């Protein structure tokens, strides 16, 4: 549980999600997260949940399976990427995978 002693948790979450809060936001978000977690602790107050199966899907249907037939056309001219990605010799440009 979040307590004032583990302010590292925010740094950990930033690293885990690849987002940052600036100095100004940090104090605010820390306080707000604390309040939200307090709200979340309400679920701990409900008793008799130990033997309840978690409900992942509200409409209980079977997973449909798709036949192994090609339906999608080959995207020869990069219609799917050309407006939104940076293409270089048919490849999508991305950052380095080892430290710069």
């Amino acid at each position, binding site marked *: 549980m979040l307590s004032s002693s583990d302010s590292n948790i925010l740094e950990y979450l930033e690293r*885990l999600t*690849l987002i940052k809060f600036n100095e100004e936001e940090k104090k605010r978000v820390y306080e707000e997260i604390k309040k939200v977690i307090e709200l979340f602790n309400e679920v701990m107050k409900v008793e008799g949940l130990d033997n309840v199966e*978690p409900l*992942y*899907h509200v409409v*209980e*249907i*079977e*997973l*449909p*399976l*798709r*036949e*192994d*037939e*090609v*339906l*999608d056309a*080959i*995207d*020869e001219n*990069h219609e*799917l*990427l050309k407006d939104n990605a940076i*293409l*270089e*010799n*048919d*490849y*999508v*440009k*991305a*950052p*380095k*995978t*080892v430290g710069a």
Partner: protein
Amino acid sequence: MSSNQTLKTIIGLEIHVQLTKLKTKLFCATSADYREKKPNTHVCPVCLGLPGTLPTVNRKAVEYAIAVAKALNCEISDRLMFVRKHYFYPDLPKNYQISQYIGPGFAPIAKNGYVKIIVDGKPKIVRIRRINIEEDPGRIVYLGSIETSPYSLIDYNRSGVALLEIVTEPDIESPKEARIFLEKLIAILEYLGVTDPGLEGAFRVDANISFEGFGRVEIKNIGSIRDVEKALTYEIVRQRRIIAGGGKIERETRHWDSNKGVTISLRSKEFEEDYRYFPDPDLPPLRISKELIEQITKSLPELPDERIDRFMKQYSLDEYRATVLVLNKWLADLFETCAKHYDKYKKLADLLITDFLRWINEFNIDYKNLRLDPLQIVKLLRLWDEGTLSVKMVKELLPQIIRDGIDVEDYVKSSGYTRLADKEYLKSVVEEVFRESPKAVQDALENPKAINYLIGLVMKKTGGRADPQLVREIILSMLDKMKNTGS
């Protein structure tokens, strides 16, 4: 440091196999046949991870996974549940991978299986911890080397291709065992017809290796069985040296550089990755019925172990020969085709697993491109049996059959490429040798063992084509004559 040498090696493998026999990707109806294709053309909104897209599961992928699980003697889950495994990386379009997870409330498609292998003649069990169905990420290429490239380039053609992740228990004790296990595993997958492991990138291995009581090192993304054996061997030497020097083995991930033949440190594992697994809300669970499992089990083809047994019974082969043949499925198929027309099975097997296999490797022929009439092998063996060809000739002709596709019978007829059994002619050659080497003749008269030297001289003169048995007879009778005339 004798204790160093006796330290037990513990190896566990994590094998990723693409289900290359599928037409479409795991979660979309896009063609999975991406190799040699223009980058980023075998893509759709789903496998690019565009916002708003949703996965749909390939039926055949599930059936293949069940077949593999069955063949690896696994317990198959009664419920297939996909989970999201979260980590950021530029080749992963959604920055999570749809996979499976073992743990309370979760279920991989299969777990607790095993594979039987034979190491130095002794049977051994390698346990399978679990099998997952999951999606392959895209492929990253670099401008120049990975270190100096100013950015990376991604091809998403591979993104979403169906993978099986097969994880063993740490039951493997040497690089050689790892190789033997992988050969067996690959053979099983090939017999099932779910993958073509020969395709580039279709088969990747992460190997965990440690010495009992020391830190565990993971070698990532090894591309072939041979490289797994080499990488593990390298790692053992490296770690032994550190331990001998009193050092500690760091817990880390290493990369196998197959060109340089070394492993390189990628990153240390200070803490466990936090993948934040949770069931994918886009995919309801699938009940796997007993009927489905039964139906798939029934339609399983003959698997390597069964075929080895059959080869031993049907063809009276020993386990070694049967195993070598069967683990090379195409070779075993060739054997069985030939065996329909030729019943000296051991002789056939020996030719195939020694000289034949050696030439295939020598010529670097992919067995899929092998255009060979199996009857040529049968003809070759028959000509050998009837004495028309010597063993030396058989060995000479074999590569020409493999590479040039010659017809053995035609070739032998038209080129006079037969064993020399013309008694008159051979007699004239023997007389020639006797004239040229009187000393050797004298030796042979005194010592019967020296006769072999004379036979050798004749063989040399005839380019090895002379029938050695006949030559021996001629020489013996000539020597007899000389003794009797009492020189």
